């Protein structure tokens, strides 16, 4: 319990260091642009592929589990839309990003720690925590919601393709379904969740990497911990945010 509390304390102390005033904003701006590419743009591919297939599967499963004349066919489109917007594009996408981006951040910073690159920054008088972590945080906080929007569009498109190609729903019914009883706030809800999840993924993974002690084995362990802890926190905050935002 004491170890857990000390880790939590250390995490918040790290955040305090991260949010201190940057030494040279121009350099931080350049770093942030670099992180947009490494952490954001390179994640578009995986989000697109997974969203497409998840949308397709949701549509097919909804169709095969509602084969009843009582249910109008357009509900398949509605189910696909709401599942994608409410859960997949934020929570499931965040879990995927925890694996990809989280492990990347933890291993990058962890390797810098064990090869003394962080010490080199400190020696120069640079706030290494802020220099290394703040640009990643800014980049993911801004770009991950964009990934959510991409996930929504591609996921619904995937549902439409699967539904019409397999013949379980007509194109007209599906499009009517995704427009039926649409609540725009659900998109806001999804984006807000993703902002929180982006913060969790980046800060928790950076924390694991920043305090690595040892060698390559410990870097690997930190990377694994980053994914596991981020995922657990994402699921926990999913419940809390859902209660706060939808109640």
């Amino acid at each position: 319990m004491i170890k857990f509390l000390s880790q939590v304390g250390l995490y918040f102390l790290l955040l305090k260091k991260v949010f201190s005033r940057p030494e040279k904003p121009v350099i931080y701006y350049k770093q942030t642009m670099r992180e947009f590419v490494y952490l954001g743009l390179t994640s578009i591919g995986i989000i697109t592929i997974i969203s497409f297939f998840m949308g397709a599967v949701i549509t097919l499963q909804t169709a095969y589990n509602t084969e009843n004349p009582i249910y109008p066919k357009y509900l398949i489109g509605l189910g696909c839309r709401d599942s994608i917007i409410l859960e997949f594009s934020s929570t499931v996408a965040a879990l995927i990003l925890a694996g990809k981006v989280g492990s990347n951040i933890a291993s990058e910073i962890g390797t810098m720690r064990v090869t003394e690159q962080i010490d080199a920054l400190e020696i120069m008088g640079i706030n290494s925590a802020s220099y290394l972590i703040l640009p990643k945080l800014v980049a993911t906080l801004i770009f991950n919601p964009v990934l959510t929007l991409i996930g929504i569009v591609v996921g619904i498109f995937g549902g439409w393709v699967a539904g019409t190609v397999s013949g379980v729903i007509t194109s007209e019914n599906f499009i009517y379904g995704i427009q039926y009883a649409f609540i725009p706030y659900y998109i806001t809800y999804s984006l807000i969740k993703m902002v929180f999840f982006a913060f969790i993924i980046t800060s928790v993974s950076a924390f694991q990497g920043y305090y690595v002690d040892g060698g390559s084995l410990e870097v690997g362990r930190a990377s694994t911990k980053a994914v596991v802890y981020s995922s657990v926190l994402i699921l926990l905050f999913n419940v809390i945010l859902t209660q706060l935002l939808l109640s």
Partner: protein
Amino acid sequence: MISVKNLYKSFNGKTILKDISVSFESGKTNLIIGRSGSGKTVLLKSIVGLHEIDSGEIWYEDTLFNKLHFKERKEIRSEIGMLFQGSALFDSLTVEQNVRFPLDMFTEKTPEEKDERVNFCLKRVNIINANHLFPSELSGGMKKRVAIARAIALNPKYLFCDEPNSGLDPITAILIDALIKELTEEYSMTTIVNTHDMNSVMEIGEKIVFISDGEILWEGNKNEILNSDCEILNDFVFANALAKKLRSSNR
């Protein structure tokens, strides 16, 4: 000058440095020598503030460094250059960008002035036509030289080198030693080198501090080290068979 007074440092209850008091002179190459695990690196990292000490004083000229806040230390740190054991070059930056990094962070020079300084530093350490290579594309000796170029980019007053010869062949090691000595004299720096390489000791050791089990057992220079009465030091200095043979023949 850098002075250390009554320094103690421990990790997890184990005392690593015990009552260290020593002065390192300006314009000289000061060596900290000792066996692996004797506390050399901990001492060096404590002096530059990478490890917080348990008690004692670390003075940079008239400034009590260890009592300064992180932000106040910045001024002194801008005068420090450090060469790490594994070079610690930034993997994601090219050779040129590595050397340019401190200039970007701490100076208001124009891009042309920075280019000029980068090229001067790289030329000074004999790195030619490697500006656009990444650290992973360099040999061990080249990495050390680029790290030295980065360390001197801001004209530091203090240069710290943690085992600069580790992993290098004897000839490259001599070149690195010569470079450190030349730069120390050229810029009148206070240089502190951690090493257990006896070639380095005999080449550049203007002031030598011998440390064993976290305590300073002997201080002197390269002329005095061969005639020391300290048995532990003699075991270290004359560790290999050739040195033992030479010593017994001299006697």
